[in-house]
């Protein structure tokens, strides 16, 4: 690859969004088609990226240009086996969201697509940045369009949710900014890779711990981890369908990605020391999230809380890997745990993305998400039932579908390192099964048919087109996990051996 592929991926959406901005407002069709077309470019490029990625080759496709020389800030981007699947996921979900939205968004079309493409750029930017300032800038850029997406196209309590989301995330960001400055003062560089290699906080553990927790806060809010999760149900419930998809599918991954890219390499000692705390929080997230999901009667809220639970697996895997830093014979288990965590990130993106789309599908028709209001829809909308079943089963970690592998690897890795945490976390699996099958499947689809929905129609073609790619990935990665684990494993092994 000798052309700047990452730059293209990142800034094509920006270019697209600017062009959308210049288009006349009335030409909604054109705006929609153009936006979708634009979003295909990063999608294709990200596939190219994955194909050309040299497994285990560390950071690749690097570009380095001085940006603000006075404080040594560079435009430094690059990708490895960790970020490439996430870049692909971002491109995929954005394209699908835009496609889906082009049928469902009726008001302020131009603004919607403009913001969405801007959001895409922000997300790509975070995944490719290797410079703290750049990282931070993109991190914040993603925030603003999301705020508007929730606040303008959201549900009845959209303003509350949007503000809550914004303030929550902003609090984390400010903490992160302070920590970044701290790192800069300690290392004299904003380069993430270089700074990590210099191990800035080896001598001063306390200062390191401060910086660690500051960054931790930023990422943990984004993940979100118990007890920083309460913005999530509101934001998800109020956001428009595509917004929820991106929020759950990608924005949560930004936090996890930060843990992998920044926190672990930069603060191995601190991470190791505090791993028990993080593991406890992760286990609480898993079990607590699952149980709270079980208590929901709002379909969208249920899935929102399930995200808390599922992201807990990611954090558990990560914490377990950090637990074992320093003990050389644990490398296999560490790598398995991290593989599981990254795999789980990807899976959660496609599975929960699909679930949110599915919620949108029924909400468009029924204008309610109250689980008590449905019943017996399976015969009425068999196609929808089938897709929902697959997505739900993938979400509860049924072997043979993608979700299983993430959980299995996380628990496998964790069990060898910290068995008690794994043993407690496993309880979450039972509750996940319960809320998916009991709450979602049973209340919506099974039982006596509720005559109220006699006019309900099954999925439209555009909805099918939106969901099939996700279903295919669930099955594909479920049946043949090496397809993605090969990529992840190489990157994780490299990362771990560097600690």
């Amino acid at each position: 690859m000798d052309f700047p592929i990452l730059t293209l991926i990142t800034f094509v959406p920006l270019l697209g969004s600017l062009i959308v901005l210049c288009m006349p407002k009335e030409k909604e069709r054109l705006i929609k088609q153009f936006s979708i077309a634009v979003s295909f470019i990063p999608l294709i490029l990200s596939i190219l990226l994955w194909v050309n990625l040299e497994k285990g080759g560390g950071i690749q496709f690097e570009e380095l240009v001085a940006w603000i020389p006075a404080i040594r800030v560079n435009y430094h981007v690059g990708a490895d086996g960790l970020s490439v699947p996430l870049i692909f996921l971002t491109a995929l979900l954005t394209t699908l969201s835009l496609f889906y939205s082009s049928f469902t968004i009726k008001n302020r079309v131009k603004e919607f697509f403009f913001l969405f493409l801007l959001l895409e750029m922000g997300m790509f930017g975070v995944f490719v940045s290797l410079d703290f300032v750049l990282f931070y800038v993109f991190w914040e850029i993603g925030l603003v369009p999301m705020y508007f997406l929730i606040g303008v196209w959201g549900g009845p309590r959209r303003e509350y949710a949007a503000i809550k989301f914004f303030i929550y995330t902003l609090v984390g960001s400010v903490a992160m900014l302070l920590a970044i400055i701290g790192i800069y003062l300690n290392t004299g560089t904003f380069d993430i890779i270089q700074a990590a290699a210099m191990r800035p906080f080896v001598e001063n553990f306390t200062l390191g711990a401060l910086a660690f927790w500051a960054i931790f806060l930023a990422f943990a809010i984004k993940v979100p981890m118990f007890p920083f999760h309460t913005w999530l149900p509101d934001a998800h419930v109020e956001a428009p369908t595509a917004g929820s998809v991106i929020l759950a599918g990608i924005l949560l991954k930004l936090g996890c990605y930060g843990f992998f890219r920044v926190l672990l390499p930069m603060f191995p000692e601190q991470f190791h020391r505090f791993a028990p705390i993080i593991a406890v929080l992760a286990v609480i997230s898993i079990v607590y999230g699952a149980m709270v999901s079980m208590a929901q009667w709002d379909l969208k809220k249920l899935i929102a809380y399930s995200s808390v639970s599922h992201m807990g697996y990611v954090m558990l895997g990560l914490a377990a890997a950090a637990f074992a830093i320093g003990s050389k014979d644990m490398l296999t288990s560490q790598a398995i745990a991290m593989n599981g965590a990254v795999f789980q990130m990807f899976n959660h993106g496609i599975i929960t993305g699909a679930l949110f789309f599915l919620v949108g599908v029924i909400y468009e028709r029924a204008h309610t998400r109250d689980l008590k209001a449905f019943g017996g829809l399976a015969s009425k909308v068999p196609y929808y039932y089938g897709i929902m079943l697959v997505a739900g089963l993938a979400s509860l970690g049924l072997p043979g579908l993608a979700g299983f592998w993430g959980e299995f690897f996380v628990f496998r890795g964790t069990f060898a390192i910290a068995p008690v945490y794994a043993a407690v976390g496993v309880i979450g699996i039972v509750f996940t099964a319960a809320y998916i099958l009991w709450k979602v499947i049973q209340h919506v689809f099974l039982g006596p048919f509720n005559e109220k929905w006699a006019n309900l129609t099954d999925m439209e073609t555009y909805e099918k087109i939106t969901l099939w790619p996700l279903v295919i990935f669930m099955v594909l990665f479920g049946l043949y996990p090496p397809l993605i684990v090969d990529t992840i494993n190489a990157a994780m092994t490299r990362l771990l051996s560097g600690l």
Partner: protein
Amino acid sequence: MTELYDWVRLIPLFPFLAFAIILLFTQRNQKLSTYLAWAGIGITWLLGWTIVFRAIGDKHVLEEGFRAPIFSIPTGRGLLELGFQVDALTTAMLFMVPFVCLMIFIYSKGYMHGDPRYSRFFAYISLFATGMLGLIVSDNLLLLYIFWEVMGLCSYLLIGFWYEKPSAMKAGLKAFITTRIGDVIMFLGMLLLYSVTGTLSFHEIFSEETLHFLKETTVWLPLVGTVSVAPVIAVLLFGGAVGKSAQFPLHVWLPDAMEGPTPVSALIHAATMVSAGVYLVARMFPIFALLPETASMSVVAFIGGFTALLAATIALAQDDIKRVLAYSTISQLGYMIAALGVGAYVAATFHLITHAFFKALLFLGSGSVIHGAGTQDMMEMGGLRKKMPITFWTFVAGMLALAGVPPFAGFWSKDEILAHAFEEFMHKGVMSWPFFVWLVLSLGALLTAFYMARQVFLTFYGEPRSHHMHAHESPKVMTYPLIALAVFAVFLGFVGVPEEFPVLGPLFGHNLFHHIVGHQYPATPLNWGVMGLSVLLALTGLFLGWLVYGRNPLKEGQPDPMTKLGPVYTLLRNKYYIDEFYSKFIVRPAVALATLLFRFDNSWVIDPFVNLVGKIGVWLSDLGRIFDLNIIDGIVNGVAAVTAWFGKILRLTQTGKAQNYLLVAILTVLLLLGLYLYLPM
């Protein structure tokens, strides 16, 4: 693919393809769907039996096994290899599973005729067959677990197949969640095994070095202390078997599973799901038997024996024809588990195989009865012998096999279990598990014969006890599978006749089954006393059954003689109130806890204190919030509220008068100056 055995990779593939094609493309066309499903399992059956008969004569494969890797997943610098295999146990299972499945598939065409979701039924049972076939050919625990869960899913879908009925829908969920609890325990066992040994492949786990390593390794458990790792792994894995094979205390899902269509019951109870649990224990038997004096074996023996007796007693008081069979299944699985618990590996496997045939037969027979009679309640049946002769005769063959009457299949396998338990008990004395197992299982044999006799007499003898009973024989597509299975129910036992048995022993290859499966274990010697006793018990049970139900067949409106047992009957009929117990002490508290946690998380929605904010003031309300468990969100909203409060206060300062502002500004300057002066530089 040079070797025939390499084709083992394709065994789960054909039913899976049938599943996928039916679900995606041919749902509209019922006929095509049927043939696709038949073709899928049929090809697998042919392929499976080809492999089986080749393997029976192939000592190398039986002893060493043949492995066919599929793919491997990188784990750090290592690899997790997944694949299929053929070995002795697989061979035995591969003989039974595809054939019984095929019979059930054929039968289903008749039974499910006219169902609105006919095609989907065939898709689901194809996936079910995929699960079971994949399970028996897996060469490692992870792959086994995957197929195991796939079966769990299918059981959910199929038990709840008629999901419009709330009872069916609940039964499906119950089956899934209950087995899932067992699965999670098994999952932990698997993780522990993987963490300790670094492998999940059977071949590597059962190698000399690994077993030796496991013997030496210890693990620290909370409350228990340091113990050997092998029994811990064994007990955890056994948790999965308890769930899947419906052993006490996770047996509650299985009787409810009768809500599904009858072929599904046959599939679950005979060929696939419940056998999987026993198969798992048999498969992992070297780990269980590694330290025979530890908890691993006694837990297995106890659970098995206890379940066998518990379920047999419950079966006495059930009126639903399928529920009786369901409890008998639980009981028979208890036999197998208990047999494994006393080390009777070969006998347990043998019983697993024979039981699969005659239980499938019994279920399909009962399905035929239900199909003909239009009810499941035995109290409404009666006199079906003449109207459904084929069903009757095949059912009786299955009944005798289950009761353990010689020379039917069940006799040989059950007797081998009893003989083995007796043998062990003679070695170890009265205060040992084998004695418990032997005693309990012998008692169970008596009960089994009795309740089966009760079932047959109630169903087929006397006169119909309901007016709207217009029974008719089932179509051929249903009766032919019955006949085929009946043949096996009668004759299959001969493959396991003890070597010393006169005439029959030498005639059938000196206990052929033992040679196939149990090459590493010594054969159980023939014990005439035990055999005589078990025959006597079976005959006594049948005689008692005839005495109570056969001599004077029940008339319409006449109460079941069992009711004379009074409170005992009530207890048995209500299954010892175990369901109620679970519902009250596990399910409801769990749901309540979930709701409570949600309140905890989200109480601001319903929180009445929010309404007081304006009235009493934000500070007071914040205090209230903290008391009201609203610790988490309260802080966030609290910050906002405090800000608002400050805002309200500060609003007073925004007088709109420039002079006020200026005063404040100057005051601030003054303050800063004061600070500057006060603080030393």
